[in-house]
């Protein structure tokens, strides 16, 4: 159990994308001209029309040297190679599993990308319909997403509960160097896995449903107020109060 926990923590730290100065960024809307001239290069969430760089998404503007990009504040999950995601088995075929990762296309996990011996005559022994797995995006092709299980910490999920949030809020849930998710884990004594596709899995180490619900509420709080200053402290306070209430009952 303890070993497992360490593994998941490691997973999340590699996923964090958040940088400092988040509060000072400018909010842009699609169609807004964000830079002119040849000194700038269009990055993610932008497009170039003549001399102008125009935002194509609603989000926060980020300028690093010459590169201009927009970090989206809303929208669906766009898979990227290397993302750790939570997926649900929707179909079992002869050479692998079709998995819903909330992307535009269904993802495919081939038998080849799994560890250990697998009885090829019955793949449902390994993963069956409506199972949840933590998996990694291996490659993204124009019409398909390929997954892999050949990495540390990737496994089938047992017990606990699932929370669905907007994928653009995932960096907020994780926090700077995993600080936010660590706060929730420590206060509620829950094991938490945050998938880049906006699915969050929570399981209490003490098998206490109340604590799982408390962790869920904390996550919903972060999703609602992503731009509050000192959010980690606020979440900590909120959790401590909730836990106090639970202990009194």
């Amino acid at each position, binding site marked *: 159990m303890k070993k497992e926990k360490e593994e998941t923590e490691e997973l999340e730290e590699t996923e964090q994308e958040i940088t400092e100065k988040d509060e000072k960024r400018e909010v842009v809307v699609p169609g807004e001209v964000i830079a002119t001239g040849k000194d700038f290069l269009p990055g993610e969430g932008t497009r170039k029309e003549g001399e102008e760089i125009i935002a194509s998404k609603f989000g926060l503007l980020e300028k690093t040297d010459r590169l201009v990009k927009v970090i989206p504040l809303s929208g669906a999950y766009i898979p990227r190679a290397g993302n750790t995601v939570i997926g*649900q088995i*929707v179909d079992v075929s002869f050479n692998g599993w079709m998995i*819903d990762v*909330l992307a535009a296309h269904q993802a495919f996990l081939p038998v080849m990308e799994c560890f250990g011996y697998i009885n090829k005559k019955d793949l449902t022994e390994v993963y069956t319909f*409506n*199972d*949840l797995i933590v998996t990694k995006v291996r490659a993204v092709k124009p019409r398909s997403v390929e997954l892999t299980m050949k990495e540390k910490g990737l496994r089938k*999920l*047992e*017990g*606990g*509960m*699932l929370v669905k949030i907007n994928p653009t809020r995932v960096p907020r849930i994780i926090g700077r160097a995993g600080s936010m998710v660590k706060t929730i884990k420590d206060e509620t004594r829950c094991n938490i896995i945050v998938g880049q596709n906006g699915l969050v*899995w929570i399981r209490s180490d003490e098998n206490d*449903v109340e604590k*799982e*619900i408390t962790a*869920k509420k904390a996550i919903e709080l972060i999703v609602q107020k992503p731009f509050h200053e000192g959010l980690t402290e606020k979440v900590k306070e909120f959790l401590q109060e909730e836990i106090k209430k639970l202990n009194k009952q």
Partner: protein
Amino acid sequence: MEISKIMKKKIEELISKGKRIDERDLKEYRNLEIRTKISAKAEGSAWVKLGDTEVIAGVKMDAIEPFRDSPDEGVLAVAAELSPLSSDRFESGPPGIQAIELARIIDRGIRNSEFIDMKKLCIKEKEKVWSVSLDIYPINDSGSLIDAAFIASVVALKEAFIPEYKDDEVQYGELSNKKLPLREMPINTTVYKIDNKFVLDPLTEEEDAANTRLSFTITYPSEVINAMQKTGQELTEEEILEMESIALKEGKKLHAKVLSLIK
């Protein structure tokens, strides 16, 4: 995405303890909001928000030839369209089984409770009667669509005015000051059975975890009951009677709330 095994188990575990994932009571409805006259072209319209579930219903009227077996009665037609914008489970195209079921539950509920006085919708026997088209459009499906759609439907009917009728033709755009001939307002209370407990106003996940459901359309105060069950687990007589008593009690509260909101 269908409900995962993990979530189904968790919901059953919680419900068996008398709790829910959003910390409501088993028989508690979410916050209800109603707005009327939201469509300029419709004869009557309503927008209902139950928690995160949003539904729009509209009433449109036309003068048509009556059916031969009921020459002095008006016509009611209910249609529902589950657009992909409201849920990731709905696809565009011809109405699917869910849309047909939703429209049918509401149609039967309104018809069997005799909410509309069909005889008074007759303009001239055997020649012209009013036809009432009721259209239901969910804007967001977050569970309990039937109950929310039913409220939107009855409110839209209540708010509707009959259009002007001159020289054997309907004068669209001109509404008369006559409202539809209505009787006691019915309300729909759908009781879900999850892990031997009865639950009202479920979330989408709870709907998925349910064994079966029974929809009661009840008029108040005279308590005329019409019930429809979804295929699934069979129910015993005691269970049905218990569900009925829940629907009668909780439906009354909902009925009073709807009336207070549209005043």
